[in-house]
């Protein structure tokens, strides 16, 4: 690997990380639902960019396809169909918001320990899922399918 590429990598990491941190803070402080959702897109796309920087392109692409292309689009679609107003709203905060802080800190600690203890690449993860754990994986997909069909049945009035 070229030394000059590494420098570019490190600089990019810093820039993207800053954008992600600012974006994450704006998600929870923003006074408009659509703005919050767009800041969340920023954070998720930033994560994809970070994956690209460490040569995990498959994970990066999946992140874009699933989170930016599908989850956030559906979220915005739902919000816009129902309640999204232009301008500020003041009742967006739940009164239990402070509970989120210890949860976030615990998650951070757990992930920091896990990610420094084990180093494993994408291919090894997929090998593990699709070889010894193939049957549970199928079962899980089947449960999801049942849940989706169940949701349709419950939502349809006729």
């Amino acid at each position: 690997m070229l030394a000059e590429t590494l420098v570019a990598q490190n600089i990019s990491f810093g820039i993207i990380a800053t954008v992600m941190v600012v974006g994450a803070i704006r998600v929870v402080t923003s006074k408009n639902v659509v703005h919050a959702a767009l800041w969340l897109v920023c954070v998720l796309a930033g994560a994809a960019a970070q994956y690209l920087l460490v040569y995990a392109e498959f994970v990066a692409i999946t992140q874009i396809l699933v989170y930016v292309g599908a989850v956030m689009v559906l979220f915005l679609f739902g919000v816009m169909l129902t309640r999204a107003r232009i301008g500020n709203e003041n009742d967006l905060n739940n009164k239990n918001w402070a509970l989120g802080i210890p949860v976030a800190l615990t998650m951070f600690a757990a992930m920091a320990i896990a990610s420094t203890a084990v180093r494993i690449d994408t291919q090894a993860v997929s090998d593990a899922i699709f070889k010894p754990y193939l049957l549970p994986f199928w079962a899980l997909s089947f449960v999801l399918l049942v849940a989706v069909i169940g949701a349709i049945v419950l939502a349809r009035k006729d």
Partner: protein
Amino acid sequence: MMFAVHFPYWAQSLLRVLGGLVAVLLPAGTIVYLFLFKMMSFMQSRLGPMEAGPYGSMQLFAEVGKWLQKEDIMPEKADHSIFKIAPLIVLASTFLLVAVVPFGPDAFFTNFETGVFYALAVSSVSVLGILIAGWSSANKYSLLGGLRAAGQLIAYELPMVLAVVGVVIQAGTMNMQQIVVAQNAGEIFGWSGLGNPYILTQFIGFAVFMIAVQAELTQAPFDMPVAESELVSGYMTEYSGFRFLIFFIAEFATAGVFALIASVLFLGGWGIPFSWFGWNNIDQIDNWMNIVGPLIMFTKMMGLVFLIMWIRFSYPRFREDQLQRFAWKVLIPVSLGNIMLTAVLKVVF
């Protein structure tokens, strides 16, 4: 891109950006002039623009000049920052899309192992831009157009992905460069004079893919989101001047890029059948293919865009329910059947 001479990292990056600009803007301009200005005019028994430049060929520059001069109008109640970002997101998706298209054996921007997957992923980003363009305009027509567009793009993304799966199964790879090689090094029952372009074996996939592209580009007959007789012009209603210009460029540039991707997947991309020159793999290909390859790609792209535009100018608009039903009840089952068939044949042969 690889170079015979070694360039420093910044120069390579600069060349890639310039190459990307050319690969996006040149097809867009050509498509607008040749098809939107001239072909549509001829189909309607008129001449089209004739005044600016010989045969009206400078018309596009005049149009761009006009758009750039226009006042930058924004609705007072609109969400201004998002209103400004939205067209840029749509255009960014086009630029991200062109990054994986290979133009020659060494003439590519990036050579992702999972190139096809990447293309399908970033093409879905434009939905985001269209949705927020419709919402931030603070206009009922815009919001309706944005929601319709999102529903349509989500519905037609599925058959598109499923149509590509057939090609991926047959080629055994998701890398676009290797898909090109697989087609040009292939043979039809032992005869290698034509290679084996997947349009022959994956014809169903090709048809589904092109229909889905037509819908993804919101070109007629799938232009319900911008239906001018009921929604003014959908999510673009409040946009004028250079902001509209960005949407306009994105629309036709994306048409060009999708045609490029279709030519890579189904028509053999930049390659010519390898047997003509006795090549066996990608390393034996002569360097001149890096010049000829892009020209071949451009030709194939123009052919496919001609098809898209021909249909656009010929057919009346689908109704919203017909449009959704067509995606979910016709295209998706057909493309699933195609995957089954391809998988069975792949195992048999």
